[in-house]
Every structure is written in C-alpha cells, then in structure tokens.
C-alpha cells in the first residue's frame, strides 16, 4: 500500500507506543507526530472529534482511532508479515478477550494502586494481584502471550512492562515482582529485550523523571494523564 501513514501520539503514552510497535513490527514507514497534550493541535481535534485523544492513525488521510482498533486495522491492512492476531477464529476471540481485559480492568487497577492511598489503595492492590495472577497463568510458560512471537496481547500489555514498573517505583509499592509472578517478570524481560520494542518505548529514566516530577499533580487527577 503506497499511501502515506502518520501517527499522532505522545511521548509518554502507552497507547500510542502500542501503535508505534505494531507499525514497526510490520515494517511500515510512517511519520511519527508527537502531540503536546496540554495544547492539542487543531488537526488532532479534527481527526478525532468524538474523544479528542491520541493515538490517531492517519492512512492516506483517513483517520483510525482507539489503540486496539488501530492494531486490528494494521493487522488487516498489512497482512503479509508478522501477524499480530492469530488466524484461527477461536484463538483470535481469546486474544481479543485478553486485550479487552487488560484495557478495561488491569490498567486501571494498576494505575489506581499507584495513585491512591489508604483503604482505596488496599482494594486496588488486591484487585491488581488477582489480575496479575490471571495473566501469569495465561502465559502458560510461553515466552510471549502470542506464543513464540509478540502478538496483540503482548503489545496491549506494554503498560505492565514499563509504565506500571515506573509508577510502582514512584509510588513506593511493589506489585509486580519476581517472587510472586516469575513467568510474568520473565515475559517483561523478553518483551523489553526485543529491539523493535525498545525503539517504540520511551526511556525508563525519562519516564521515571516525568512521573516523579508530576507526582502531586498527576496522582491528584482522576484519569491517567500521558
């Protein structure tokens, strides 16, 4: 497909990082546009009038929004190499289920564990432990959720491999640790050791500095701010 591809994202966002990773795995060239979320560009608002959020993928001038929907679009459009989703319908349904679970439940529980205090934090941490256990079991001793290669579930779990680790350090708690979740921690190592993954992630030190500096402000807000 010869049409121009552009990605509107932001440096610290796990959601735009997912799309970057998918495009790189497929070998698609694209223009990587980083938005300043405090000053959203007119173009971004034009392409995503309903939610006004990143990431937005522009393919031949046509926008696709919502990171997971973009991942499916990328897999269907550039279907030659590195399948992101399984081909078998049942396996696909399972992968989509876990992706939805990560987005709907896991991210929020981990984020809230790091940003709340007292009884609320205790509850979110309990919830997080339950979810992490489910993910630990789902890996079934495989290198990746996708089996031998990085797939859509791995890409969606990027938050766990980097952002959750940084946030728990900033918050001074230990949720994701090798003692409790050895297979998951092994997955984190495998995931982060991939060159393509490294290229699509922000630097850990920069992310730590970003969240640490904004600790008071971000942690006081309701929604994650990337």
């Amino acid at each position, binding site marked *: 497909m010869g049409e121009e591809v552009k990605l509107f994202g932001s440096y610290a966002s796990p959601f735009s990082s997912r799309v970057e990773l998918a495009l790189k795995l497929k070998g698609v060239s694209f223009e990587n546009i980083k938005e300043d979320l405090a000053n959203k560009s007119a173009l971004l608002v034009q392409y995503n009038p309903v939610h006004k959020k990143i990431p937005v993928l522009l*393919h031949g001038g046509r926008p696709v929004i919502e990171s997971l*929907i973009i991942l499916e679009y990328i897999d269907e459009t550039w279907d030659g190499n590195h399948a992101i989703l399984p081909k078998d319908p049942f396996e696909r349904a399972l992968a*989509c*289920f876990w992706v939805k679970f990560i987005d709907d439940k896991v991210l929020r529980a981990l984020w809230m564990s790091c940003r709340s205090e007292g009884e609320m934090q205790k509850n979110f941490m309990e919830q997080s432990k339950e979810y992490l256990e489910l993910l630990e079991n789902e890996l079934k001793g495989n290198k990746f959720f996708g089996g031998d290669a990085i797939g859509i579930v791995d890409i969606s779990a990027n938050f766990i491999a980097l952002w959750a680790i940084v946030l728990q350090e900033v918050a001074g708690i230990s949720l994701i640790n090798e003692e409790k979740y050895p297979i998951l921690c092994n997955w984190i190592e495998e995931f982060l050791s991939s060159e393509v993954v490294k290229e699509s992630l922000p630097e850990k030190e920069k992310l730590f500095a970003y969240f640490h500096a904004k600790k008071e402000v971000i942690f006081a807000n309701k929604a994650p701010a990337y």
Partner: protein
Amino acid sequence: MAREKGVVLLDFWVSPFGQRVRIALAEKGVDYEYKEQDLINKSEHLLKSNPVYKKIPVLLRDGKPISESLIIVQYIDEVWSNKAPLLPAEPLARANARFWADFIDKKVYECGTRLWKLVGEEQEAAKKEFIEIFKLLQGELGDRKFFGGETFGFLDLALVPFVAWFYAYETFAKFSMDEECPKIVAWAKRCMERESVSKTLSDPNKVYEFVLFLKKKFGVEY
C-alpha cells in the same frame, strides 16, 4: 465430563448483550441450545465458562467458551462466513464499525442505568447525556437505511437490543426518543422488520416491568 457438542449459549432473557449474540446466530441460521442463567445464584457451568468476569453471554462451541458479546459476534461472523456478513469487508469500514460499537459499549447501558437509578438533578444530567449519545449515533447513521449501509450489520446489531429499553427509559426519565432522535426511531422500526431482530428483542413492557423490579430491589423511588 464429556465435552458438550455443538453450540450452546449461556444467557439471560432481557440482556441486550446476550441479544446481540442471539441476533447474530439467527442471521447466520445457526442451530444452538439456549440456556437461561440465574444471575443471582450463578451455575457452576457459567462460573467455569467465564471465570474472569462470571457474566453472560457466553458462547460455547464443542465445550470451548468465548465471552464478551462483541467478541462473540465477531467470532460468529468469522466461523459462519458463508452467510449474512456482519462486519464490512474493507479494513477502514471495519475499524469504523468497531469504533462505534465500542462507543455504544462504553456509553449506552451505563448511562441508561443512571436514567432509572437516579432521581432529580442527577437524573436530568443523565437524560441530557443519553440524548447526546444518541444524537451522535444519529449523526453517524445519517440518511442511510442501516449503520451498515444498505444491509443490516455489526453496528446495527450492537445497538438495536437497547431499543427495547427506550420505553422504560422514556417513562422513568420523562422524555421521548421519537422527539429527540426521530431518525434512530425510524432506523429501529426498519430493524424490527427483520425476523432475527423482532424474534429476539424483549417486549418493551416486559423490560419496563423488569426495570421496575430492579428499582424496588435497589430501593429507588418509583
């Protein structure tokens, strides 16, 4: 225990999410066994089939379970691909359909619930939001026969089960969908001409009684 062969659906009669799956199965002409679930005393079968969420609908095929209504519908579309395609063929159109289905999932049921659970100012705010949501959907529909264009498809079936709840929502929150979103009401009538939809959707009066039951249960004034 031997694996049960064939297609089984674990569901609850009034669930709009379960109805999405039933409409999809009907459109595809798939034979299946319907198993009504008790949502207060959940069966072992349900708990084993959906251990993560413990919710309906769950579709089982030869004993293997799939949960989450839109995921189930996409699975049905892929497996029984020889008849009545639900998702469009083209990736951009598919992405658009998925986006709006996701929008419906995140907004409609939750906002609708606030319409009967809340009173006073909070209910008024929920009503404004509900109408806004449907005005956006109306905009997306435009002047087309269905969200899928000329043919009934994924997005139509994602939304249509909630139409059976309009009467209950309108009565409790005092507004008229016909006045606020006439194109949506017209679209709903066209959907109801399809047997898969008319045979699946709950009678609005029965939905109203069900919501009344929920209101009593939650101690909401009625």
